[in-house]
């Protein structure tokens, strides 16, 4: 018996934060964002941790919200540093390099527990998978965040992002007066793909989208 159906899964976008660090140096990013974190807490934070943390500080996930985090390569610079620390591996860089460190750096720093936290990785379908996870969450409010940081030698091997960016969006089941858009997926024919960086660009530019993002799945992003 085939149960797979075509109803749309949808949530409203209540809050959205995007940050495209472009060619900014890690030091400049730290200097720009450090005011959003408790004094002294940014010294060991990664660039991605700072960017994702800045987004989370604005959308402010509560304990009973759900949180979905998407990053293909995560803490690339901490990974590079950890690998470079052998044969005496650094415990700090080991902890910092473990997925999903970027979110933990921020929420541990602010002592903010959260019941459901779903950290994801991936490549060409990562945006679809993260959106699907967000729309499947039981919590009335779900925060969808993600990002990447530019690597150095790992990037030369195709094992890190070439861009530095982050986003955080608060998604609600019920439409509120603050809703700025809607995000939904539904079953459809055909194929497609949508990675994290193109999804980020759609959010950053507040650009509407209606297209296939995975085999059998259509994504609709509308702005009010």
């Amino acid at each position, binding site marked *: 018996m085939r149960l797979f159906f075509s109803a749309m899964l949808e949530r409203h976008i209540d809050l959205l934060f995007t940050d495209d660090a472009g060619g900014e140096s890690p030091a400049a990013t730290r200097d720009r964002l450090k005011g959003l974190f408790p004094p002294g807490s940014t010294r060991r934070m990664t660039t991605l941790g700072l960017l994702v943390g800045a987004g989370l500080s604005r959308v402010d996930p509560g304990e009973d919200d759900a949180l979905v985090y998407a990053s*293909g*390569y995560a803490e690339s610079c901490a990974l590079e540093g950890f*690998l470079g620390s052998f044969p005496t591996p650094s415990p700090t860089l080991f902890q910092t390099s473990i997925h999903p460190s970027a979110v933990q750096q921020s929420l541990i720093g602010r002592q903010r*527990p959260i019941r*459901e936290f779903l950290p*994801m990785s991936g490549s060409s379908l990562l945006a679809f998978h993260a959106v699907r996870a967000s729309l499947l969450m039981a919590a009335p409010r779900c925060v969808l965040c993600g990002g990447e940081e530019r690597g150095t030698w790992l990037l030369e091997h195709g094992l890190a992002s070439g861009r530095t960016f982050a986003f955080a969006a608060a998604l609600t089941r019920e439409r509120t007066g603050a809703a700025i858009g809607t995000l939904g997926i539904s079953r459809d024919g055909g194929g497609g793909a949508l990675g994290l960086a193109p999804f980020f660009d759609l959010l950053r530019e507040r650009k509407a989208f209606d297209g296939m993002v995975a085999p059998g799945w259509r994504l609709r992003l509308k702005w009010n």
Partner: protein
Amino acid sequence: MAETPAPIRIAACGCVTPFGDAQASHAALIRGECALRRVPVLGNDGGDPVPLALMPGRPLDETAPPGWLSSVKGLAERLPPGAWGSPGRPVFVTGSNFGVGGLYALGRTGNAAFASWGALPTCTEQLRLALGWGPDVAILSHACVSAHLGLLEATRAIEAGAADEALVLSFDFLSPFVAGGFHSLKILNSEFPAPYRERASGAIGLGDGAAFAVLARGRGDWTLEGQGVYNEMHHFTSNRADGSGFARCLEAAAGAADGRRVWFKGHGTGTLDAGRLEVAEASRAFPGSPITGWKGSLGHTLGSCGLVELAIAIESVRSGIAPGTIGGPGEPMGPSVALDNFGTRGFDGVVCASNAFGGAHAAFLLCHA
């Protein structure tokens, strides 16, 4: 009147450890065997000998293609046939350290052949191609609760009608990257782990492992109830000392178990504070339930432990006997800690729990359908 949908069940489940499949792993645990052996923490690069449970014949050092691929392929041969990764049949790959062995080897040797199996997305893509899956392969990675999240996400996808059935596949194979990392934290040292036992200092062992579960509506002999998670966000490597985070996680499983007799398969890595906390909170949530843990033999299979140990828990219920807590010596951390094997016929289910960095906790109640 709308038809009530059939309940979601585990239609198939299996694992592979250094002992073999779930049946062989269960049998070895029942015999009290230990898969851990002392291995130089950095493989060919040497270092302190630490307890690791590696697949037979597999060195700690990464090869290209990886030596562990044959284990995962062998496991995948036991999957129900079908177009996994296609619309309606998504795959959820879970784990915490896959790919990093390739990164370590790439960093040490500069050999670009390691790059195609390095990092989570590239490693998963190579595996997807090797197993002939379609593209709908999501990756969930949240350290040692990763497999639980895959089961939760798969359940939700089916519940919402976003999937007909779903495959959760988890794999973690050791490398100098992860062994060196845990050694740097000093919890992986020359001592063998003794989960849920009092001793002068704690120690863990690490293990290779992979497992799968197929979830579907109305098919299979096993149910997952009361799936719960909680993230304390208190400290990178420690839990809240009062146990409140783990207690919050257990609420859903305790609610599902209400009035039923259950036993408790805990995380039990061998660290002291976490072990005491687990025993205290499990005893509080499930009074009188025996507590057992198997990482003293299998080692900690990291992000895959929740699924590897689920497969062994199923085998325990199926066979009517559960392995006791392996590893010693030392006094048990509480009267509920089961050091000896025990019968499962008198129980209605088993609560399976895992705990992770960042104070992340996950648990569910496994019952026979």
